[in-house]
């Protein structure tokens, strides 16, 4: 399926977020577009990558002041929408997959019911139909014994399986935009790859856009078409591959990672004062 319209799914210009009367802004002048592609946002803790994701979903607490000259989802301004309109949008048109399935699944509800709820709300299915859709979706995310997992509770399944369930729940409505916030950070390395490939497959199938938020620049680089690097609430650089990194922060980030194939005696350490001097010159 070729994308018929080249217009971006999400278009953001000059997004600013400030919590309360905090002197330091959480996000400053962030602008980017997301089409039917996979875009990665990388940065260290506190760089504003998750806040960006939440601002798009309008999930930040009321004390967060969010402003933007444009924040359009499929051509419609997100910030102008009422909470009711947002509720319709969330889950149906845009979905958020979070880090730890153990915290984002309801612990007292069987898996099947939770996915069926998603089918009921977003696909308008009822009773048996919703359960059948849930079961099909579980099979779709390659869970071996969907009938058994349907009856199980979140604590009875492994982390990797939990993340598959989350993906099933979020993608059953075929949203146009999927935001995955550290979807594999809580998982073991061997499971990570499967979950990422699965996510990729489903997103391509639905022809949607994907924003992958992660601290792991290597993983993002091997998975995404474009990488947005954030530092201290600003976008410092946008690249298509690690070898194209120009900004000293991105380079320092890559150099700080140990690599088994290219051993060094000492790891390169970031010179934060030098980075801040560069930041001041730009600002």
């Amino acid at each position: 399926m070729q994308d018929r319209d080249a217009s971006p799914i999400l278009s953001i210009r000059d997004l600013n977020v400030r919590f309360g009367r905090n002197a330091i802004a959480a996000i400053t002048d962030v602008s980017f577009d997301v089409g039917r592609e996979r875009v990665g946002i990388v940065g260290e803790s506190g760089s504003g990558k998750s806040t960006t994701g939440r601002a798009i979903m309008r999930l930040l607490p009321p004390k967060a002041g969010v402003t933007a000259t444009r924040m359009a989802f499929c051509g419609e301004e997100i910030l102008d929408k009422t909470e009711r309109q947002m509720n319709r949008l969330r889950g149906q048109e845009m979905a958020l997959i979070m880090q730890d399935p153990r915290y984002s699944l309801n612990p007292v509800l069987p898996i099947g019911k939770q996915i069926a709820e998603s089918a009921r709300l977003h696909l308008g299915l009822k009773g048996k139909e919703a359960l059948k859709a849930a079961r099909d979706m579980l099979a779709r995310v390659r869970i071996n014994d969907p009938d058994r997992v349907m009856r199980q509770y979140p604590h009875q399944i492994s982390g990797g399986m939990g993340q598959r369930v989350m993906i099933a729940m979020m993608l059953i409505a075929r949203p146009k935009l999927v935001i995955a916030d550290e979807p594999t950070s809580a998982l073991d390395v061997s499971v990570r790859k499967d979950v990422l490939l699965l996510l990729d497959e489903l997103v391509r199938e639905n022809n949607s856009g994907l924003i992958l938020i992660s601290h792991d620049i290597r993983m993002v680089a091997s998975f995404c078409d474009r990488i947005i690097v954030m530092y201290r609430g600003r976008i410092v650089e946008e690249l298509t591959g690690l070898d194209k990194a120009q900004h000293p922060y991105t380079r320092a980030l890559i150099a700080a990672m140990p690599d088994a194939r290219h051993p060094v005696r000492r790891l390169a350490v970031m010179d934060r004062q030098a980075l801040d001097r560069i930041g001041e010159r730009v600002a």
Partner: protein
Amino acid sequence: MIRVENLDVAFGHGQGRHHVVRQVSLSVARGETLGIVGESGCGKSTLLRSLAGLERGWTGRIWFEGREVGTVRRREELKLAQMVFQDPYGSLHPRHRIGTALAEPLRAMGYPDDRQKVLRALRQVGLPADFANRFPHELSGGQRQRVAIARALILSPPILLLDEPTSALDVSIQAEVLNLLADQRDERSLTFVLVSHDLAVVAHMCDRVLVMKDGTFVDELTKDDLQRGVAHHSYARELFEASFL
């Protein structure tokens, strides 16, 4: 320096019995850094805790510096190996100042409270002396991990047991902490056992890596193997591929 023979750890009884570490043997030479990689639940942390003397339910034999140690340790035996945990926030008392936390091992081992020793330990890990008056929540994650390293080193143990020492840190901070550990190792000719799920970190730090799965070692990799990306066991190969994703 460290020798382990047929170490076995099991939790629970009867039906619920869970065999976590199965007949594990290993040895580490003086000044060597041994890495143990594996996924959650493979028994790597339990193995390390048994070495540290935190786990009492093991069977088998353990030697430090040629001396055999039992499940219950005496002070001299405890002083031989100290441990650094993954989450420094969980391993530092939230209402004790850093100075108090650092003096704790001295007090526990029956040494007099020596303020100078505490300040020296702080300086050695690259922290200013006035941090002794701060509380753990006033420090960043990387600084807290430095404190944890200082606390482990204050008794001058010849062996340091590291359980995922940088997993909770950003890569740039991880680089600083790994450099600090490497410097201390060279300076004091320490012997390390480093447990991690991150093959890249282990490959960077270690001379030799054991791959653990379901309580046993399935593969042993030398530095050369790691560099060339060679693994002998299918599971180790899988780990390799996943970490280079």
